[in-house]
């Protein structure tokens, strides 16, 4: 499953933000606890804000325009965070959501290093902190409902459904108004594809999206290296054993106990 956000349809009402906090029981007083450096005057994602609507002003054809972007976790098709987690606390479920299990989490924050979009948030001021983020309302989604945010959007800026259908829909919208939209579906190919897709009439870089994400899924990079591990273990071990045995025969015996002694500090 996934969602398509049409930036041009969002009016910035913030209903999705409210719906998200209410449904997930996120408390605003956690505010001070987040240690997210503000990049702009826009509110950023935080441990208690799993989705935010940010506004951006532009000059287009001599006119002032404003665009609102709902930001959130991307639920990548091949999530870097999940592949990075050594405790299996982050996992991609078959239905699409990438969910976090705090009971398994060690709090190492390698998932945050791995995430190409910097959207994971950590409870820095808790003795036993969690990594928090949008879970795509897994309970609602398994029941066949939309996530809370999508269900309340008054303008239809968020379309929820099968990812393939959403891609089709996005392509159709781009094809219908080629002069209006930027010809790019953000999330179609970025890091191997994400469950949340975006289309827009202003370049994504100007909306604060990372434009440097590679098209290859990140876990593939790691795996290319990691899969050599057993071979190196066995091969290197064999070489060393061979050398050891070979050199052992020629080595002179020496008595280590005679050789070393504690030093006398005085």
């Amino acid at each position: 499953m996934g969602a398509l956000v049409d930036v041009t349809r969002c009016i910035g009402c913030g209903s999705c933000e409210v719906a998200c906090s209410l449904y997930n029981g996120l408390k605003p007083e956690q505010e001070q606890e987040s240690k997210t450096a503000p990049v702009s005057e826009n509110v950023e994602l935080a441990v208690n804000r799993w989705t935010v609507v940010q506004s951006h002003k532009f000059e287009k054809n001599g006119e002032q325009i404003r665009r609102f972007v709902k930001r959130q976790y991307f639920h990548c098709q091949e999530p870097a965070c999940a592949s990075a987690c050594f405790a299996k606390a982050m996992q991609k479920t078959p239905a699409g959501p990438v969910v976090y299990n705090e009971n398994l989490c060690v709090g190492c924050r390698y998932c945050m290093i791995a995430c190409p979009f910097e959207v994971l948030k950590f409870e820095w001021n808790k003795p036993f902190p969690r990594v928090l983020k949008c879970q795509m309302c897994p309970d609602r989604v398994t029941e066949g409902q939309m996530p809370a945010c999508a269900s309340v959007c008054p303008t239809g800026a968020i379309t929820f459904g099968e990812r393939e259908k959403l891609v089709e829909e996005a392509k159709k919208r781009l094809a219908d108004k080629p002069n209006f939209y930027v010809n790019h579906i953000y999330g179609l190919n970025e890091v191997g594809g994400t469950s949340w897709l975006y289309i827009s009439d202003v370049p994504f870089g100007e909306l604060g999206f990372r434009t440097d994400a590679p098209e290859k899924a990140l876990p593939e990079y790691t795996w290319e290296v990691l899969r050599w591990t057993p071979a190196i273990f066995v091969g290197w071990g064999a070489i060393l054993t061979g050398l050891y045995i070979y050199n052992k025969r020629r080595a002179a015996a020496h008595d280590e106990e005679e050789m070393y002694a504690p030093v006398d500090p005085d």
Partner: protein
Amino acid sequence: MQKKRWTFRITGLRVLMIALVIVAVLICLYRFVYGLGSMTNLSDQWPWGLWIGFDLLCGIALAGGGFSTALIVHVLHKEKFLPIARAALLTSLIGYLIALVSLFLDIGRWYNFWRPFVYWGFHSVLFEVFWCISLYTVVQILEFGDIFFERVKVNFPPYKKILQAIMPFLLILGIVLPTLHQSSLGSLYIIAVNKLNPLWWSMIIPFFFVWSAFFLGPAMATIEGTLAARTYQRKPELHVFSDLTKVTMWMLIIYLIVKIIDLNYRGVFSSAFNGSFESNMFLLEIIGFVILPIVMYAIPGIRTKQWGVFTASVLVVAGVILNRLNVVFTGMAKSLSGQYFPSLWEFLVTIGMWCALILIYCFIAENFPILNKEEHVPNRMISSGASVRA
């Protein structure tokens, strides 16, 4: 030789170091109660800071002396390096313990630390790092047991016998494991494809990490040996150090060549000269701490002098530290939206941890057979004394 008493000389410096260790312990207690955010400058943009970047990454690299000397001495049987073998093993062991402590400090949900032993997230590089480091620490403790029981004679002979029987196995494991995880410490950053500056990001970053950890070993042994000689007023093992330079020099040369080929291959070679902060740091790392030591090692007039090997070795070690810091900090700075500079508390914890390392080393060297047996030489006979102090 049996000394029954445990000795630990107390000097002013040692008192200071003990105080610093206590301060660090107190800060750590505070951290466990109030969370990481309460005293570190870490943030969502900079989830890993000084403790991971320096104590863990550099600490483990500095401990590389253990496995490279084990390889040279016990597998290749270059007997002449035997005098430094135990000291290298000891530093390595303490280095790993420090790394484990800092890891434990840094993880948020530490009571879950054992999870990866049970839930196998083997697609994660961290999984490999975690397993190899834990296993290797155990191996080192076992290896050290050999030395331990030379001093502490217990009427439990089987231990030493068992140990002797499995020692070859431990030795091999003690080289294979660190090879794997030294490289995977580098692989940790492979996933940061769009975050780490291409001057450092590379698919062969694991090679660079393991290779540099290896050539750092002999340099570390030289520094340690020199410092130990000074502290305990002994003659430094100069001939051993000079011989080791050959290993280090050739490894440095290969490192340099591979680095240049790799940069060229990825088409980022020119960005090393674009005048940006990153490129300058990169050039500093390569020219000051790779090329310069190569030159120093190549000149016999420098290589065979105590000050010469020592200085060049310091450069090599500093270079590897700089490299790790560049990967963790310099290379990431531009692409991350936040800023990070360690807080005073983070520094104090780090300082305390390294003081603890030195104190433990001294205690063990003074009570266990670690250093080569040798008669006492008065201070003034050590030719290198003055230059080392500088």
